[in-house]
């Protein structure tokens, strides 16, 4: 196995009494697009700042391409950052902004110009080289910040919620562009966001963080379909968590008793353990279908049309937790209507954490 682009070893970070990070062990593969996903205060930005050299961890080591950089200042690290507020130099032209990193590295002026031009063309803003920062729109500034950080060819590019200030449509468009640029340059990207849709859209690997630790890490598909913890299951997309207890356990199968019935699902857990089953709204169906088990009938209390589907909140008799489910686009539904519920135990994910 090759040396990972980034390695965190037992990172802990305290601000006074407050523990911001603990027990962080994470390897990031060369050339991958990694998204640190979590709520505000989850520790993802702190981890990014430790990687960028803006914070020194209270304990642990940071390695970039196998070299220990824990005590190396930002200027000397092979990392650059795209900041949330872009942090462009307001007194410089666009070209001077993009060329700043090269200038600091002592690249002669004649050599800088073509590289700046290439970087600006990459983000589609070659024509803005002589303009001032305040003549550009938010989306354009964002791209300049990206060009400025990439032109010095860092080993790792850090992105601190770079799309947070953009409106939704522009954000989705920039996500695609970011992904395309990353594929083209092949640089390792570490991107921080609290938007799970953004994380799924752009990440090769998602690292879900909460309260200073890593809850789950893996491909978007893996985390969405087989989340490792209650937190990851809830944070990544809509979900129903059904609390229950293990009644039987054998060779990778467990029998679980819940208020919605007894199910046999794959996984490992000790008999008697309190667990939860994750069941995505799109896996609850009004018809039996293949392998569907009947879960009884439920009354619709709320329904909304989301374009691709209808999202409903339903309450099943004898189970007072509200369940969310999705109905097909053309299936009309009214509050008050009674639906039969069916689900395939194969779609249920056993959560022990």
């Amino acid at each position, binding site marked *: 196995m090759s040396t990972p682009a980034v390695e965190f070893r037992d990172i802990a970070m305290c601000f006074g009494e407050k523990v911001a990070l603990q027990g962080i062990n994470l390897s990031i593969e060369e050339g991958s697009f990694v998204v640190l996903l979590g709520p505000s205060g989850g520790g993802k930005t702190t981890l990014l700042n430790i990687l*960028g*050299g*803006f914070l020194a961890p209270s304990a642990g080591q940071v390695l970039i391409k196998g070299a220990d950089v824990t005590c190396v*200042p*930002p*200027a*000397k690290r092979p*990392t*650059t*950052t795209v*900041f949330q*507020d872009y*942090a*462009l*130099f*307001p*007194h*410089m032209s666009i070209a001077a902004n993009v060329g*700043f*990193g090269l200038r*600091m*590295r002592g690249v002669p002026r004649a050599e800088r110009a073509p590289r700046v031009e290439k970087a600006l063309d990459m983000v589609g803003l070659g024509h803005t080289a002589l303009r*001032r920062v*305040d003549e550009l729109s938010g989306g354009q500034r964002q791209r300049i910040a990206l060009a*400025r*950080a990439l032109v*010095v060819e860092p080993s790792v590019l850090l992105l601190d919620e770079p799309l947070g200030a953009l409106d939704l449509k522009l954000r989705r468009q920039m996500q695609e562009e970011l992904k395309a640029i990353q594929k083209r340059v092949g640089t390792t990207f570490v991107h921080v966001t609290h938007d799970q849709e953004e994380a799924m859209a752009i990440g090769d690997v998602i690292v879900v963080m909460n309260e200073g630790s890593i809850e789950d890490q893996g491909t978007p598909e893996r985390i969405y379909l087989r989340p490792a913890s209650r937190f990851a299951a809830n944070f990544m997309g809509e979900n129903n968590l059904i609390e229950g207890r293990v009644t039987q356990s054998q060779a990778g199968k467990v029998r679980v008793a819940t208020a919605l019935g007894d199910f046999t699902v794959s996984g490992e857990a000790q008999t008697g353990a309190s667990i939860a089953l994750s069941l995505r709204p799109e896996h609850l169906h009004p018809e039996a279908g293949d392998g569907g088990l009947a879960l009884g009938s439920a009354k619709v209390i709320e329904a909304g049309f989301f374009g691709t589907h209808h999202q409903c909140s339903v309450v099943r008799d004898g189970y007072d937790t509200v369940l969310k489910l999705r109905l097909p686009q053309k299936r009309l539904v009214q509050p008050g209507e009674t639906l039969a519920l069916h689900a395939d135990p194969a779609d249920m994910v056993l959560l022990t954490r």
Partner: protein
Amino acid sequence: MRGPLLHLLRSLPLWGYVLLLYGFIFLPVAVLVLFSFQDSRLPVPPFNGPSLRWYEAVFSDARLLEALANSVVVALTSSLAAVVLGFLAAYALARHRLPFSGLLQGFLTAPLTVSYLIIAMGLLITFNALGVPKSLLTVGIGHVVINLPLCFAILYSQMGDHQANIERAARDLGAREWQVITLVTVPMLWPALFASFFLSVTFSWDEFIIAFMVSRFDVTLPVEIWSMLRSGLNPKTNAIGSFVFLISIATVLVLDLVVFRSRKA
């Protein structure tokens, strides 16, 4: 047709008030300037002129011209010192965690609340105790004392989190500390540096009480004007007063143009 007329009538009190207000502020200055063009020996009505004889007298008075040069030197050097010291203090307090930073900040801005008379007396006593002879240097030091808090306050207010992040970006791109300051912090704060320098210049240019108390043989223009006034009113004092006013206005205008233009761009 009644509409516009009524509107005019209604706005009359407003215009009257505006005229009164500006008259109250500017009439004394206007009278001063007017009688600097007086053709007789006393700056009192009736006005007979205009004449430039008193301006001629001002610009052929060696003592006045020397005081004028002294004022320019003191204003420029003391303002430069106040801006540099204010910038360094603001940078330290805005960018580094210092022990007792709240207290330090309080002490830096406190002189703003102390009257110039008290500062002048304090300086006089201190200079006497230290055996520092009274000169233009001591006047300059006095002007740094009054202008430093102002420069500090203006510059400190312009060094927020956004600016700190821009400096962080420079470090991230490989800039060393001196490069961050010279290539990013100072150019980025240019309008604020410029504004504090020119405000300091105008304050130093007009300042009388400190300049009066801590100077001896070489004096600044306000002190020279004061000694002229002791021998009674004279259109020549009006002429030099108008000149001082013109320089102040010009400085404020330059300041306004430069800062306003950079804000707009």
